[in-house]
């Protein structure tokens, strides 16, 4: 469903990705973990061509992302939902209009069908009653749920979650991850979840991929990942990374 082969990306003299390769099968939910500033969000943006890699190729749904024409890319993107770190909701629109927006702009559905679809999505994320509110009136958790509803509005086959629990308290964060997990199971989506919620995310994903020093150093099931003797993985899983390596990651 998603395949990346030898991706390289630099910003000036700073090499962020140095030969990233990985694969996600249809229906799989994969957690992408790694140090802050290590290029996880960047990798998601490369998958949808919000940015272009300096080198390497990406295939999504069998299409070469870099070689796709504008029309092909548009079609491809319509099969992908993206939940941004901060939600990226349009502040000038209500919750309802935010979710309805992609349907109004990119489908031929009538207003009646749009209402039915939006109501369905808002019920799925438990925010039916908040449809008239503006993003500024929502809590962090609610924003992430609306962002998910908007990402699901066009029935995507793939959903990419970019640190969706950042800035949320542990209770809300758990509720949001439970919701993502439930949605994934119910809709049988393929998903990549960038998160630092370890070990919580191990309960909801089928695979864990770890990005370290610009490369994917492991792609394993959560059980095998946790049992890995690799000191880098163990440091990360147990939260015992040395101060030096943490600082190094942050600087990158």
């Amino acid at each position, binding site marked *: 469903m998603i395949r990346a082969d030898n991706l390289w990306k630099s910003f000036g003299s700073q090499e962020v990705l140095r030969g990233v390769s990985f694969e996600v099968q249809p229906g799989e939910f994969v957690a992408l973990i790694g140090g802050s500033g290590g290029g996880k969000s960047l990798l998601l*943006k490369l998958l*949808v061509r*919000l940015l272009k890699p300096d080198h390497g190729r990406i295939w999504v749904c069998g299409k070469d992302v870099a070689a796709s024409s504008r029309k092909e890319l*548009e079609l491809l*993107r*319509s099969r*992908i939902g*993206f939940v*941004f*770190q*901060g939600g*990226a*909701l*349009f*502040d000038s629109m209500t919750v309802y209009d935010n979710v309805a*927006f*992609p349907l109004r*702009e*990119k489908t031929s559905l009538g207003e009646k069908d749009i209402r039915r679809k939006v109501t369905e999505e808002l019920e799925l994320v438990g925010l039916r009653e908040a449809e008239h509110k503006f993003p500024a009136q929502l809590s962090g958790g609610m924003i992430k749920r609306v962002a998910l509803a908007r990402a699901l509005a066009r029935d995507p086959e793939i959903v990419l979650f970019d640190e969706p629990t950042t800035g949320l308290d542990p209770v809300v964060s758990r509720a949001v991850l439970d919701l993502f997990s439930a949605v994934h199971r119910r809709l049988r989506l393929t998903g990549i979840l960038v998160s630092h919620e370890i070990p919580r995310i191990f309960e909801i994903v089928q695979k864990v991929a770890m990005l370290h020093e610009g490369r994917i150093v492991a792609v394993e099931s959560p059980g095998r990942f946790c049992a890995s003797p690799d000191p880098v993985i163990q440091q990360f899983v147990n939260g015992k990374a040395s101060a030096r390596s943490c600082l190094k990651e942050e600087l990158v």
Partner: protein
Amino acid sequence: MGAIHNAKRLNTCMTRWLTSMGAALMEEVGRLGRSGMFLCQTLLHSLTPPIKGERVLRQTWFIGWKSMPVIALTGIFTGMVVALQAFPTLRRVGSEAILGPLVSLSLIRELGPVLTALMVTGRAGSAIVAEIGIMRTSEQIDALGLMGLNPLRYVVVPNVLASLLALPVLTVVFDVIGILGGYLIGVRLLGLSGGTYFGEMSTHVEMKDILGGIYKALAFGLLIGWVCCYKGYHSRFGAEGVSAATTQAVVDTSVLILVCDYFVTAAVF
């Protein structure tokens, strides 16, 4: 030996200086090229459907209607001060009768378009930069792209079109109110006859003057929309990035308005 060493050092310094100058020049040329491309793409999208009419109207209301009070206030005081300054000088040479044409031509040809554009830059241009900058930093622009929508068409084109529509109207309002301000001072305060004020005006003001003012307003409208949208669209991340983009946009637009004013004046009048 020492002379050779000094010559080598001088050579190294010169090379470094030339390299850094060249890099800065290339960066500047690249920036100009990018902003030119941005304008071309915006104009292309402005001329081809679909145009987001509702957003154009909303932005026209924001740039045009909401700027009316400040334009009216600036206009009346500008007209009043021009009349107040000009009247004693004109009386000294016995030409008070041409106060009307002097006020109206100053406003229609020069002060109206320029001051209106500067006021709109300060009031609406800065808001456009901040809004687009925040959309950029909060990834709303990326979200539009991922929905298959062209952010230029959705965010930039409505602002540029609205600015093009609003500036000529605001300029006319500025001119009319400014002329009334001149009337208040020249006729009501300083005793010039009302008939003379308006009569001489109709003799001296030609359609070419009015059209010249409108062309200027259109050029300034395009400048405001282009520079403010470009700066917002490419603003750096964080509050500091948006704030820097806003300041830079207001300064650049204001300077460009004055530069452009010279060239349009030279071309039209």
